């Protein structure tokens, strides 16, 4: 905790140490989970439960987000499309940005806000109410029983939701292009399919899996390392959302650079 006497150097040092603690903690968690993957040691029913509540229950919010994202992109592009008469490029422009960048990032941020925050709150509450300790005393490994199913569910379901969101975003873009700019859906889909490569789609999906891992690790790490009772749960959720968003953008930058 920072004190009034601390100078800028001390505060910077403390912040760096805190960052290192969190990044290191998440890395250690990842390593411990990896150990439980060979051979796989996880609770099957818990995995299915998490796949359902994290994936299926996220469909409405992701769908709405994706539809509006596609529409907004067409509105933004409308000015240029009209000025240059480049209606044939609408499908390519919308598809390229949606599949490679906007779709995975926006869906990941929505997923982080809904599922990641919920995961942190749940784990943090279980930690402060000693439910995690109770699992251990019942000879149950919390990482295998609780965390691994959640991490796998988040990675898998964010990937699936990104595919689902991409499709809806493109449908939204096609509809808005027709309604707002008069670009026929045939023109839109032709422009899209002619210009977009499979690699563009794959790039976005690889990113979504990475984002899923970032959200899962950060939300689980903050949930398990909470201290300070009920106020601590609030702080953990806040820190988890911020860390997830930061991690998503850092990962996006690195992945974009590497996957060019």
């Amino acid at each position, binding site marked *: 905790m920072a004190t009034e006497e601390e100078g800028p150097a001390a505060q910077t040092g403390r912040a760096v140490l805190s960052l290192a603690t969190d990044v290191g903690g998440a890395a250690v968690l990842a390593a411990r989970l990896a150990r439980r993957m060979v051979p796989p040691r996880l609770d099957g029913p818990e995995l299915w439960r998490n796949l359902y509540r994290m994936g299926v229950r996220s469909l409405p919010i992701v769908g709405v987000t994706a539809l509006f994202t596609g529409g907004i992109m067409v509105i933004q592009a409308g000015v240029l499309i009209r000025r240059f008469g480049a209606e044939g490029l609408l499908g390519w422009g919308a598809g390229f940005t949606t599949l490679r960048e906007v779709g995975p990032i926006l869906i990941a941020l929505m997923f982080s806000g809904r599922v990641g925050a919920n995961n942190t709150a749940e784990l943090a509450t279980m930690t*402060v*109410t*000693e*439910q995690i*300790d109770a699992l251990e*005393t019942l*000879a*149950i*490994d919390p990482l295998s029983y609780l965390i691994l199913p959640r991490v796998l569910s988040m990675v898998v379901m964010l990937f699936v939701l990104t595919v689902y969101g991409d499709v809806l975003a493109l449908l939204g873009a096609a509809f808005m292009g027709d309604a707002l700019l008069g670009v026929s859906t045939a023109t839109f889909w032709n422009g899209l399919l002619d210009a977009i490569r499979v690699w563009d789609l794959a790039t976005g999906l690889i990113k979504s899996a990475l984002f899923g891992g970032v959200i899962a690790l950060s939300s689980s790490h903050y949930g398990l390392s909470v201290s300070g009772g009920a106020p601590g749960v609030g702080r953990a959720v806040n820190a988890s959302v911020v860390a997830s968003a930061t991690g998503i953008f850092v990962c996006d930058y690195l992945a974009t650079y590497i996957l060019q």
Partner: protein
Amino acid sequence: MEPAKRHSVASEQRWTQTVPSAAVSVLMHTPWSGQSALVVQATVQSPICRPVSRLLKSTHRGVTSAQADDAWQEPYAVSLRALHAARGTNTRSHRRDMGEDRCGGYTDAPRHGIVRSMIEVTNVWKRFAAPVLRDVTLRVPQGCLYGLIGPGAAGKSVLLKCLAGLLRPERGSVRVFGEAIESLDEVSLQAVRNRVGMLFQNNALFDHLTVAENIAFPLRRRGVTDEAEIAERVADRLRAVSLPGFEQRLPGGLSGGQKKRVGVARATVTRADVVLYDEPAAGLDPVTSQKIFDLLRREQQEAGATVVMVSSDIDRLLTVTDRVGMMLDGALIFDGTTAEAQGSLHPVVKQFVHGEVDGPL
């Protein structure tokens, strides 16, 4: 020669240089059993006893550290056990009826190390920001209900978590069933935990499970698959804590006292050998508190379990305990029978046990 055999022969050669030959011959030519252990106890009378018991552990597969440590027991314990065995009086109920003790041994047993300790804490240190356990040494004999008292932040709950293997001490040793908890890997630790039940201060009921599922949880995780048996045992536990018909309720819909009782039901459903209770009656009204303490005592006696109980409700706690330890600032400042605690002249213990306002606390 195989490496294992070479090691075994080398160990035996070392014994023959240090241990009386009669004992060695028994150890070398009979399989490990209670009888051979008695011979060792009766014949090996030197400071080398401890190394011998450790060698036994290291060279004989299947000999647990607890059995090896039994070889360290004092010889007159052997004669007492043999006497009781011959008379058919070596049963817990008989000893209890005879008023010999309520700790699974003899009245002065823990002091002389006769009764095998289910829990042994030796010179344990633990710190977080500041030291929370300081050089704690404690023995809890088999079948004993041990009360741990002390003011807030004295280290009671931390010690309980060390016993459950949830925290590892920085120094010292915590042995449960003779196994050194701090040095066990996860798999071995889980085997120990399968024999331990625990009630947490916050009850630690799983919010997403119903009352019945919470109570059945330890049974299912221990491989009980017969649904009829699970339902029967859950119903039995709920009757024991006066909550029949609560099977399908969720923990969120229960009062504090009801949650506590469900926690007790879950902690006792497996009839664990060692049960740890952290504030089992916190937040309960006096009548319910006394019912809970009576229930825990009855459960402990029926199951023959070894129990360590932390409670701030001193008056009621002392009605059920066999032995009492008092902690202050991370140190165990008193360890004795309940009667000794009530009659203690130690100023801190006296003030705390009798709830006096004036005193060092």
